[in-house]
């Protein structure tokens, strides 16, 4: 979500601090996803401060059969930076989807998107990422 480990850690600590304070005051959140919601809100808030990435319209390409080999050549930071540059709610949808910790129902609840919107966000994200991959790590025929 942040594209930067230091900022992500700050968000994580601030979220935990808030959770601890709430628990100490007997106001422990009932929502099982509270921690994720709070962290996401803080991420979005933090990313609005400082330098803003330029809005770029990514070219969308069909997911290629060789996409996996292209992705293998990437560094995790490159992926993180790419996802953090996506507009929200697509950014949230992609970040939570690729964590692979949530069911479809959980994703809808967490992102507060309708089924069609979630499908579009993830699908477009894939195709835009494929477009970016084709530019950054072009597929070379063996």
């Amino acid at each position, binding site marked *: 979500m942040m594209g930067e*480990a230091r900022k992500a*850690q700050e968000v*994580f600590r601030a979220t*935990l601090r808030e*959770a601890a304070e709430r*628990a100490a005051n*007997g106001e*422990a*959140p*009932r929502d099982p996803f*509270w*921690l994720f919601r709070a962290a996401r809100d803080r991420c979005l808030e933090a990313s609005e401060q400082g330098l803003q990435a330029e809005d770029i319209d990514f070219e969308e390409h*069909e*997911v*290629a*059969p060789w*996409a*996996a080999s292209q*992705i*293998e050549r*990437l560094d*995790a930071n490159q*992926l*993180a930076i790419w996802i953090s540059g996506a507009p929200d709610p697509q950014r949230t949808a992609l970040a939570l*989807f*690729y*964590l*692979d910790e*949530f*069911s*479809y*129902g959980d*994703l809808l609840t967490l992102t507060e998107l309708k*089924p*069609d919107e*979630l*499908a579009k966000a*993830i*699908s477009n994200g*894939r195709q835009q*990422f*494929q477009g970016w991959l084709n530019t950054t790590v072009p597929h070379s025929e063996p």
Partner: protein
Amino acid sequence: MKLAQLSRRQRGLALCAPISEEKIADRAMRGAISQARKTEDFVHQQAFDQAVNALVRTIPIPPEIAEWFSTEHIIIGPRRTWQRLARNPAMLAIAIALGVIAGIFVYQFVEHLHDFPGSGTARRLLKVASSTRSIILDPIKTDAAALGDLFFMKHRLAHYDVPPEFADFHTLGARVFDDEEGLRVAQVWLAEKRMQFFLFPAERDAKTGKVLDFSGWRYVDHEGWAGVVQQRNGVCFMAALRGREKDLAPYVSKPKQ
């Protein structure tokens, strides 16, 4: 086949198909994936998603953060005490429903606890007793013991005898009628406490036709009326009055010789 050929709903679900099998929680998603697996682009999508997820898993987690996840629960919610649970409207509704169901079962059980062969007919005749007016009976002033002969002579009803415990009672009227099940019933009206006697055929086994026997006096009650029933020679005798079991008990506690 292409993903685009699936229905809109299935395509939407397939586009969000969880990367791990164990995250597929609902039937609709399972169905959509099963259809989507037949398409080439879904195979590419899955390979793409798995590769991205593998890359995500290589992101190092700082030790101080990993420490937080060493235990299962980061935030322990307020403990659910039984008082909180009891105040939950859903639990309350379930408890009330179970209580009502249990109550009905107990009522049914208690209701039929003292049932005996012929108790159904006896209860039905208590209803007759409550609605009978004396004018519909033929006036007969005699001792109850004498009615057995009358029923036999006039109506050919064998063994329609009043037991010794009630034989000395003075009658005001009597009649013989067919009840709603076609049983020949003799009804006697008495001077004593507006008591009524009923004599009716004992219940028989539907297969063998054998009389379903029971011994001694058995009580029944229905809508404020009480009856005490005895079976002899295939005929049931019932003494009935408005009141309760205790009002009839003195009559049958000491059998007369």
